[in-house]
C-alpha cells in the first residue's frame, strides 16, 4: 500500500474514521429510539394505559440528548467531505452531493422541524397532532438512513454514471440506477435492523438494571420497567435472527460485487472450492499468509456460497495495491458476527423464560441482559469498519483511489484539527455518555414527569439556585 507512508493522508483517514465512528452511534440510536417512541405513543393513544405514556416521557429525555449529539456531530460530517476529501468531493460531488442534499431536504428538516413539537409541544398542540409530530420525526430518521446508505452504497458499488474524460468527474446518467445500486437494498436492511437491535439492547439493559435494583431492595419492579424489558426482549428475539439472515444475504451480495473485500474479511489468500472457514488467525499482508489459522473444514464455502464445493476468492487473485487491509477487517467481521450470535441467543433465551413465566424473575438473565447493553452498538461499529475498511484502497470502488481523493491540506493543519477533534469529542461526548448513564440509572416512575423538574425553568429552576433573588419579581429561593 503505497499511500500508507503519507502521514497527511493517514491523518485525514483517521480523522474521518474517528468523527464518523462517533457520529454513526447517534443516528442509529435516534432511528431505533424514535421508532420506539412512536410505538409507545401510539400504544398509549390506543389503549389509554398510562404505562406507555410513562415510558414515552422517560425515553424522550434520552432522545433529546442523543438527537442533539447527532445533530452537532453530523454537521461536522457534512463539511468534512470537503475539508478532508476535496478531490473526491469535486469528482463525485455531482452524485454524492446531490444525494446528501436530498437527505437534508427530505429528512433533516422533517426531523428538526417536528422535534420541537415532539419535545415541548404536548400541551400546546394536543395528543393527535403530537403523535403526528413523533411519527414525522421517526419517519425522518428512516428517510435519512435511506439516502445516506444509498450514497455510501454507490461508493461501494457505483452504477448509473459516466466519467467525464477531461475532468475525471463522475457524471450522473441514470439517477434510479445510482440510487438503487446493487448493494443498497442489502445495506439498508442490515443497517436498519442494526439500529433497532442496538436500541433494543439498550432498553433491555436499562430494564434489567432496574429489575436487579428492585430485587436487591426486596421490592417488585415497577410496571414501566417490566413493560420496557419485555418489549426489548421481543425485539431481540425477533430482530436478531432476522439480522443474521440479512447479514448472510449482504455477504452474498458483497461476494458478487466486492470479492476482494470478502477475501480480506475471511483471511483467504488462495482462491479455492471446498474452502474452510477460519475461526481464528492473523492475516499477514507482507508474507501473504494467515498465521495461527484455526480452520473449520468446508464451512467457508458453505457460508459464502451456500454449497460445500463453492469457489471462494483469495487475496492473491488481486494485485497487491488493490487489497484491503485484511488484519483489520478479519477481526472486526468476526467480532460483529460473534456479537450477533450472542444477541440472538439472548433473544431465544428470553422466549424460553417467557414460556416459563420467569422473564421478570431470573436474575442471571437480567445480569446477562445488562452486560449486553453495548452489544448492538459494538456490532454496528464493527460492521461499519468491515465495510468501509474493506472498500479500501478505493473511495469509489475500483474507480477512485483514497490516495487520489485527499485534500491539499497542510500536515500541520491536519495534526492540529485531529488533536482538537479528539479532545473535544472525548470531552463533549464523554460528558454526554455520563449524562445518559445517569438518566438511565434513574428508574421510570409511574406518572413520569413531562420534563424532569430541573428541566423546567421558572419556579422550579429558581429553587435549583439557592440564594438567588430575582429583582424583577422579588421572588427568591
Amino acid at each position, binding site marked *: 500500500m503505497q499511500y500508507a507512508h503519507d502521514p497527511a493522508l493517514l491523518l485525514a483517514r483517521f480523522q474521518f474514521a474517528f468523527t464518523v465512528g462517533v457520529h454513526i452511534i447517534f443516528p442509529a440510536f435516534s432511528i431505533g429510539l424514535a421508532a420506539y417512541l412512536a410505538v409507545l405513543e401510539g400504544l398509549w393513544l390506543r389503549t389509554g394505559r398510562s404505562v406507555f405514556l410513562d415510558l414515552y416521557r422517560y425515553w424522550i429525555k434520552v432522545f433529546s440528548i442523543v438527537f442533539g449529539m447527532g445533530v452537532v456531530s453530523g454537521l461536522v460530517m457534512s463539511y468534512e467531505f470537503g475539508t478532508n476529501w476535496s478531490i473526491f468531493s469535486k469528482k463525485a460531488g*455531482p452524485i454524492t452531493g446531490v444525494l446528501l442534499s436530498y437527505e437534508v431536504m427530505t429528512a433533516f428538516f422533517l426531523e428538526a422541524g417536528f422535534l420541537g*413539537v415532539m419535545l415541548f409541544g404536548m400541551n400546546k398542540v394536543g395528543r393527535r397532532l403530537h403523535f403526528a409530530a413523533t411519527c414525522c420525526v421517526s419517519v425522518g430518521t428512516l428517510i435519512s438512513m435511506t439516502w445516506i446508505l444509498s450514497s455510501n452504497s454507490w461508493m461501494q458499488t457505483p452504477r448509473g454514471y459516466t466519467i467525464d474524460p477531461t475532468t475525471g468527474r463522475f457524471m450522473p446518467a441514470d439517477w434510479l440506477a445510482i440510487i438503487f445500486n446493487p448493494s443498497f437494498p442489502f445495506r439498508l436492511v442490515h443497517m436498519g435492523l442494526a439500529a433497532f437491535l442496538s436500541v433494543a439492547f439498550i432498553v433491555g439493559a436499562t430494564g434489567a438494571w432496574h429489575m436487579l435494583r428492585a430485587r436487591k431492595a426486596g421490592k417488585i419492579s415497577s410496571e414501566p420497567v417490566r413493560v420496557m424489558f419485555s418489549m426489548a426482549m421481543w425485539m431481540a428475539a425477533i430482530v436478531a435472527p432476522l439480522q443474521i439472515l440479512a447479514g448472510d444475504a449482504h455477504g452474498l451480495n458483497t461476494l458478487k460485487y466486492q470479492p476482494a473485500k470478502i477475501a480480506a474479511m475471511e483471511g483467504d489468500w488462495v482462491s479455492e472450492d471446498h474452502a474452510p472457514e477460519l475461526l481464528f488467525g492473523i492475516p499477514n499482508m507482507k508474507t501473504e499468509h494467515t498465521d495461527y489459522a484455526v480452520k473449520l473444514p468446508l464451512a467457508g464455502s458453505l457460508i459464502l456460497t451456500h454449497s460445500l464445493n463453492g469457489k471462494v476468492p483469495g487475496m492473491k487473485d488481486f494485485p497487491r495495491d488493490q487489497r484491503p487491509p485484511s488484519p483489520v477487517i478479519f477481526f472486526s467481521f468476526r467480532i460483529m458476527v460473534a456479537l450477533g450470535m450472542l444477541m440472538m441467543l439472548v433473544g431465544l433465551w428470553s422466549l424460553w423464560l417467557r414460556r416459563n413465566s420467569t422473564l421478570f424473575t431470573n436474575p442471571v438473565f437480567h445480569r446477562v441482559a445488562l452486560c449486553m447493553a453495548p452489544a448492538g452498538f459494538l456490532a454496528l461499529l464493527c460492521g461499519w469498519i468491515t465495510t468501509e475498511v474493506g472498500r479500501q484502497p478505493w473511495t469509489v470502488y475500483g474507480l477512485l483511489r483514497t490516495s487520489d481523493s485527499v485534500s491539499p491540506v497542510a500536515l500541520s493543519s491536519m495534526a492540529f484539527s485531529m488533536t482538537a477533534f479528539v479532545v473535544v469529542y472525548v470531552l463533549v461526548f464523554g460528558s454526554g455518555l455520563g449524562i445518559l448513564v445517569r438518566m438511565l440509572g434513574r428508574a421510570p416512575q409511574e406518572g413520569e414527569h413531562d420534563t424532569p423538574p430541573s428541566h423546567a425553568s421558572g419556579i422550579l429552576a429558581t429553587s435549583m439556585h439557592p440564594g438567588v433573588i430575582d429583582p424583577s419579581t422579588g421572588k427568591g429561593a
Partner: protein
Amino acid sequence: MMDFAYWLPIIWAVILVAAISIYVVLDGFDLGIGMLFALERHPDRRDVMVNTIAPVWDGNETWMVLGGAVLYGVFPGAYATLLPAFYLPIVLMLLALIFRGVAFEFRVMTRGTGREGMWNAGFMAGSAIAAFCQGTILGGVVQGIRVVDGAFAGGPLDWLTPFSVLCGLSVMCGYALLGATWLIWRTTGVLEESCRRWAARLAVGLFIGIVAVSLWTPLLHAPYLRRWTDWPNIAFVAPVPVLVVMLGGLFIMGLRRGHSKGPFLCALGWFFLCLSGLGITVWPYAVPPGLTLWDVSSPPSSQFFQLIGTAILLPIILTYTIYSYHVFRGKVTETDGYH
C-alpha cells in the same frame, strides 16, 4: 442545453444565497443569544433566553447543513476549493457549534452537579467563536483565495487578514444584535429592558462595522470598485447604502417607542442588505477572484435533478418551519414550563 447550462447555476446561486441568508438570520439570533450570556448573569433569565430558542434551534442549524450539502452537490468545485482554503476556521467553527449545540441540554442536565457553569461557558464561547469564524470565512471569501488549476493552492493561514478579522467582529456584533432584538420581541420585564439597552449599543457597533467593511471591500479588487462606482451600476446599487441608513432611523424609533417586533425586523433588514451588497460585489464569482459560478458547477444533469426536488421540498420545509415557530409563538416568561 447551452441555455440550461447557463441558467441552472444562476438559479442555484439564488437558492444558495437564500439558504445562507435564512441560516444567518435564524442561527444568527441563536448564536447572538449565546453571546449575550456574557452580559446576562442571572440564571432564571438565562433559562428564559434559552427557552425562546430551544424548540427551534435544531431546525435553524439544519440550514447550515443544507448550505454545505447544496454547495457539495451543485457547486462541487467551490466546495472542494473553499473548504480546504478555510480548513482551520471551519474546523474551529464546527467544534464551537458542537459545544453550543450540546449545551442546550447539558447545561440543564448537569444542574446541581457543579458542571453547569462549564456548559454555560461552552454555550457562550461556542456561540461567540462560531459567529467570529463565520464572519471571518465570509470576509475570506470576499477577499479571495489563491487557486491554481481549480484547486486551492494557498497556505493554511491565508484567510487570516485584518479585513477578515474585521468581518468576524462585525458578524459577532450583528448576531448579538439579532439576539438582543429577538429577545425584545419574545420576552418581558427586566430581560426585555436590558436587551433594549444592549441593542442600542450593538447597533452602533454593527453600523461602524458595516461602514468599515463597505469602504474597505471595493479596495480589495478592481472589479469590486467598478461594480459600485461605474455608471449605470451605481444607479442600481445606490439604494443599498441609503436603505441601510433609513433602517437605522426606523430602528432607533422602534427602540425608543417600545415596539416589540420593530427592532428585530430592522436588524433582519440590515442583514438582508449586507448580504445583498456582498452578493452584488462578488457576482459572478463563486470563488473570487478566479472561479465563476459556471467554473465550479456540477453537470446540468445533477443540478436539474436536484432542482426538481428543491422546488417541491423547499416550500414544504418552509411551511412546517413556520408552523413550528407558530406553535411556540408569544412572549416567554420565567414560569413557562417548557425548556
